[in-house]
Every structure is written in C-alpha cells, then in structure tokens.
C-alpha cells in the first residue's frame, strides 16, 4: 500500500516534470508553424488549424538566415577543432607528469572559470583592433578557442587519468615516440571523452552572443545569435518570425545533443567532477 503510494507519487512527479521541460520547446515550434493570424488570436490555439512554413520562408528571405547559419557553422567548428587539439596536449601533460609549475597551471586554468568575463571585454576589443582582427571571423575563432581551453583541459585531464599509463609505456617500448603513442594508442581509447569535449565546445561556440555582438558589425559576417539579437531589436512584435529564427538557432544543437547524449553524459560527468 505504502509502496504503491510512493510509486504513484514518483510517476506523477516525473510526468509533470517531463511536461514542464518539453512544453517551452513545443510552444516555440508550434508558434513558428502557425499562420500570422493564429499567433495573435483568442482563444490561444494549442494546435493550429493549419501548419505553414511561411514564417521560415519570410525570415530566410528578409534576413538571409542561411548566411548566418554558414558563419556560425564555420566559426563554431573551427574553434572546436582547435580547442580539442590544443587541450589534448595540455591535458595529457597535466594528467601524466608532476612538474614544478603543475599546481600553478591548474590553478590558473581554474581561476579563469571564476572571472566575470566582461571585465576583459573592452581590453580585448582594443587588442583585437590593434591586431586588425575586428570584424573578422578569425577574431571569434580566436576568442572562442581561448575561452574554452581551460575548461576543456580540465575535462580531458579527467579522461586521461582514467587510462593507465602502462598503455603508452608499452607502445614506447615498442619504439613509438611519446607523441605518436599519444596519437595512435591513447587517443583512440578515449574517443568518447574527446567527442564529449568537442560537442561541448561546439555548443558553447554556437550559442555565444556577447563577444560576437561586440566584435562583428558587418552584416555578412554575423553569427546566428548576433542575427537573432538584432532581429529582436528590429522586429520585436513579429513573434512568428522570431520563433522561426529561434527554432533554426536551437535545432542543430538539440539534434547534436540527441545523437551524442551518451558521450556527453558519460563525458561531462566522469571527466569534470570526480566524486
């Protein structure tokens, strides 16, 4: 009796929770598919009489969303690839060797996670101006790479620590250099961890707004979040267009998450926060 009651409570909790989590996504998708008159009609339509892609056609025609998607893809992917390459090296060294500056390097990486980022934003703008990188995609690739190196290193270090060092020692006895042992023997074993780090980096880059708003002015170089941001300023009342833009911005990362959920859950948890 008591057991059934508590089991019933659990089911109710999980069901309510599921609805609360899923509903905002449902609502933005359904709004984006409604004809203009249905969006502002009373009573609210929880399921429209007719579905239309007009909102999507409109925003792609008016505001060239395909260009922003291409920019976002290019920038997010390049920065994620570079981050993984650099962080694999630093994480490997920090996981395997104790050296004099070890503690300081780790502390230095940890501290970056605590700093309020905007303090550095203005000086970064000046630095980028001096390097002649303002209004280039390269500036964002550089910023996103730098921003993610500390966290990715900490994450990957956790993965390396789970792999016994006897593995590369054996490879080195067989004549591999340390570098080729790392690339050919260790990295294949921790592919899950590398995938998790890569996806995490990609999603962060894809979503970044403030640096991109400050550094990019040129219409043809804008990323999706920047485009959505100026979209909000211009078309604050056109919720059909706004929700279509939101759906286009979030679907790629949600799809990625759905496909790679296993890596991410396994990766972020066991890598980042060890018990």
């Amino acid at each position: 009796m008591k057991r059934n009651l508590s089991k019933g409570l659990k089911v109710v909790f999980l069901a309510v929770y599921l609805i609360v989590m899923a509903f905002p996504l449902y609502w933005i998708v359904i709004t984006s598919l409604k004809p203009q008159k249905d969006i502002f009609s009373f009573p609210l339509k929880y399921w429209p009489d007719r579905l239309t892609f007009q909102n999507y056609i409109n925003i792609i025609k008016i505001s060239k969303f395909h260009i922003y998607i291409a920019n976002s893809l290019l920038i997010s992917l390049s920065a994620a690839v570079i981050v993984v390459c650099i962080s694999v090296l630093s994480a490997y060294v920090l996981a395997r060797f104790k050296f004099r500056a070890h503690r300081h390097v780790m502390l230095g990486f940890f501290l970056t996670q605590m700093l309020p980022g905007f303090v550095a934003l203005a000086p970064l703008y000046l630095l980028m101006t001096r390097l002649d990188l303002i209004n280039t995609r390269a500036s964002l690739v550089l910023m996103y790479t730098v921003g993610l190196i500390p966290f990715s290193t900490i994450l990957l270090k956790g993965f390396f620590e789970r792999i016994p060092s006897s593995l590369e020692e054996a490879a080195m006895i067989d004549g591999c250099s340390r570098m080729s042992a790392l690339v050919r023997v260790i990295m294949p074993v921790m592919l899950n961890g590398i995938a998790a780090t890569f996806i995490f980096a990609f999603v962060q880059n894809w979503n970044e707004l403030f640096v991109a708003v400050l550094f990019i002015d040129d219409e043809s170089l804008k990323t999706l979040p920047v485009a959505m941001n100026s979209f909000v300023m211009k078309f604050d009342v056109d919720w059909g267009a706004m929700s279509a833009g939101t759906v286009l911005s979030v679907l790629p990362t949600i799809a990625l998450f759905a496909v790679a959920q296993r890596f991410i859950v396994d990766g972020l948890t066991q890598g980042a926060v060890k018990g």
Partner: protein
Amino acid sequence: MKEGQPSVVRRMQSGFRSSPRGFIFLSLLPALVLVLVFTYYPFLRGIVMAFQNYQLFDLTNVHFIGLDNFKTMFHDTKFQHAATNSVYWVFISLILQFSIGLTVALLMNKRFRGRGIFQGFVFYPWALSGFLIGLIWKWMFNSQIGVINDLLLHLGLIHERIGFLSDPSWAMTSVIVANVWYGIAFFAIMLLAALQSVPSELYEAGSMDGANGARKLFNITLPYIMPTVITTTLLRAIWIFNDPSIIYGLTNGGPAGSTHILSSLMLDKIMYGGDYGAASAIGIVMIGILLLYTIFYLTVTRSEKLGDF
C-alpha cells in the same frame, strides 16, 4: 623491476619516470600563451580601467580618476538594487535548481521504461543558449497573448492576466523561474553520474543492518556524493552570478531596472553607455564578492579537496 632485464628497457622506463621537460614545455605552450595573452592580460588591463575615466565615445580623454567610478557606483540606486537582486537571484535559483535536480537524479537512478527518452528531455535545455531561453520565456510570459497567463486562467489559479514581465513586483520572480528551468539539467546530469558511482555493496550492507529507504539516503547516498554536491553548487553559484544572458533575453534588466543583477548591469554599461570604467568598477566588486563567497563556502564545507589538484 625484475633483475636481469635488458638494460635498454631499464633505461627507457627510467625515461618515463623522469619528466621529459621539452615535451611538457612544448605541449603546454599553446594553451598557456593563449590564456595569458587573451585572458589574463586583458583581465588585468580591465581592472586598471576601473580607476580610469574610460568612455568608448571619448577615447581621447582617458585618464586616472582614482576611486571616482566606485563612488558614483555606490551612490547609484540601480547598483544597490542590482546587488540585492544578485544575492536573491543566485540564492533562490541555486536552491531550487539543486533540490529539483537532485530529486530528478534520484528518480532517474533507477531503471524504468522510457528512461532514455526522459533523460533526453531533462538534458536538452543545456544545448540552448541563455539568450534564446530568455526569448522563449519572454514569449510565454507575455501579458496579452502569453501561454502561461492562458494556462493559469484555464486552471482557475488566476482571474485576470498578470504582467509577469511588465509588473516590477513580478518581474524578478519570472526571470528566476526561467533560470531555474534552465539550470536543473546541470545538477541532474552531475548528480546522476555521482549516484551511479555509489558502490552497490554499501546498500547491501545497509540493508543487512536493517536501514530503510530514508536512512539509506541520508546515511549512505548523500555522504557518498557530498564532494560532487559541494563542487557543483560552488561552480554553479559562480556561473549564475556571472551570466546575464537569460536576463538580457527576457527583460534586458527592465522594467525600470527592476531585474538587473550585477552582471547584467555591467553589460548594460558596456553595450549602451560605452562606459568601460564604470563597468570595470562593477566587475571588481563582483570579483570581491566571489572571493568572499568561495572562501566562506570552502571553510563552511571544510572542503580542502577542491584546491588539491
């Protein structure tokens, strides 16, 4: 090491033990150079700006003004309000995100049908940006055609529409609701992983001693996952404190500045005023608060482990 091994192997193995300095140096170099040049240098430069008159639209007139930025800031009612809001924002968001996240993680720790799909829905907000979540909730909170008003009316919980975002007495609660919704996923993921690492022998031993469900939770499960709890709540509090993106997307600090927290006020000074001096002064106060919080937290929880890399 066994005796009589070939000397080449012995020499190579001692080679692994003594750190190869060149390899360490070269491997760390790119990460260190990038982080020093593009994080620490601009950050220190930003701290200097707090003591300067530094306006984006008046760059020919940059000069040191001592503590003037801080004096102006402390007399600004917007700042005082944002400081209070920040505490409220972090505290309430953190408690709700954590307790709901823990409940979800505990329930998901047992197998049930459809757990995989459920997990997907628990985690997906993590794939979204705070800014877009702000936008989605702005649409749902709309006082005229917002779905939340509509649902509450249907359920009979309210009798007239509420201006969730336009009424200053509701606005802060509304942004916190969106923030809690967003942040549960983080705790659910982290705590679920910690729960799955609890050795099952502990529970078996507990059952033999006659411990019931609640006893097991408080005497076995929670103590075991405590390090994860401490780390995640500490990190999360810092992120909630530092990240203005939900507020930016939802209310942009309005109405009349009632939903500004320190980080969004700082963003406001940069984006709309171009006043980098004033923004940096707020940044320094934020760093001070974070330092005090971290020290206090680590002392109270007696967690020396965090500093032990």
